[in-house]
């Protein structure tokens, strides 16, 4: 089975702020940006509970002083602002940017050799962006933001995971 985790910052995210300013300076009409570190774990079903519990309690990918973590189990819109699928006033797009080979062997080794959690077969990591735009042709704007700033096609790839309807629509 596959479980997915989004890790965000409790403090203001400088990357988010700089990316938004840069996109606006490039005249790309993005209203807001939100960023999370994204992890997916392919695991044996009986290991799910142990992995979920351990990953959130040890300081490997989540530092409780500065990070929050959310399991992103379903595709329902959410009312929590920190959730990737938060439904804001404007429509937004959820985009995953990863390296062309997103496998994270280092993290897999940490999980199996240091945290001693068995049953984890594969780990991938990437960056999850929620991009809101006031434009009607929102997807075109999102692709422009990706091409101009948020990804480099020579070693990365992106997937638009879905559109989140805006509350003001």
């Amino acid at each position: 089975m596959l479980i997915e985790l989004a890790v965000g910052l409790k403090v203001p995210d400088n990357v988010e702020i700089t990316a938004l300013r840069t996109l606006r300076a490039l005249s790309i009409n993005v209203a807001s940006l939100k960023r999370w570190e994204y992890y997916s774990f392919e695991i044996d079903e009986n290991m799910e509970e142990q992995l979920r519990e351990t990953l959130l309690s040890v300081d490997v990918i989540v530092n409780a002083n500065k990070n929050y973590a959310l399991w992103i189990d379903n595709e329902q819109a959410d009312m929590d602002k920190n959730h990737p699928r938060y439904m804001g006033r404007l429509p937004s797009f959820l985009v995953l940017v990863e390296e062309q080979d997103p496998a994270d062997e280092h993290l897999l080794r940490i999980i199996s050799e240091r945290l001693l959690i068995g049953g984890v077969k594969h780990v991938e990591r990437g960056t999850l962006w929620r991009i809101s735009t006031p434009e009607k042709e929102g997807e075109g704007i999102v692709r422009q933001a990706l091409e101009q700033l948020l990804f480099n096609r020579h070693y990365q790839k992106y997937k638009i995971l879905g559109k989140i309807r805006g509350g003001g629509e």
Partner: protein
Amino acid sequence: MGNKRIAVIYFPGMNCENETAHAIRAVGMSADIIRWNMLDEVAGHDGYVLPGGWSYEDRVRAGVVAARDPVVSIIKEEAEEGKPILGICNGAQILVESGMIPGISSNVQAALAPNINPFIRGYYCTWVHLRISSVSNAFTSLYKKGEVVRMPIAHGEGRFTTTEEGLVDYLEEKGMISMKYTDKNGHTLSSFPFNPNGALNNIAAVSNEEGNVMAMMPHPERAFYMRQVPCSHKEGLSPAPGRRIFESMKKSLEKD
């Protein structure tokens, strides 16, 4: 012939501007450290160096935010006039993300991607052996082709890569690959530690076709005096291999 004036372009987060300016001055050119937002003071220099560091804290990707900065458009115009432009480490990342390297089309044609290293994820620093593969650009003319030199690297995102079909062959054919990572005998071994970041074809430095713009991941300003080179302290201030990058730049300007 007056001193050639070189602008060292400083972006927020860079940290090698002073030693780079020192290296420029030590070979007899003058160096002005120009901040990224002093746009009126950029044009009109004889040459430009984008030094190393972490411009904009490497946010999003190393070099990409600086590459979208208005000052880079001015540097592009200066490059089109044939002025020498050198990017060192973070400066190299900016030149690649701006499309100035390799500069065959107006698009971004390559990346300096996160290192592939079997032991460490992220930042890695060490001394490497480099083979000078081309001496036909503004920054390598005082080396001998095939010469093996040592310089330090210090980066997390320095793996030259591209998805452009045939690009690396084109770079090889046109002599645009200026330096390659090798072993001490100059053999290009693709494995770690000889290729310290997993770069395609062991590429450590690339120039544009005209030879006036070069992006290099190693730090020549940190291999300027022999006292900076490991196990060479007794030789003190005598020249180390990185010095000839700056001397070549000066020579290219004096030719004009």
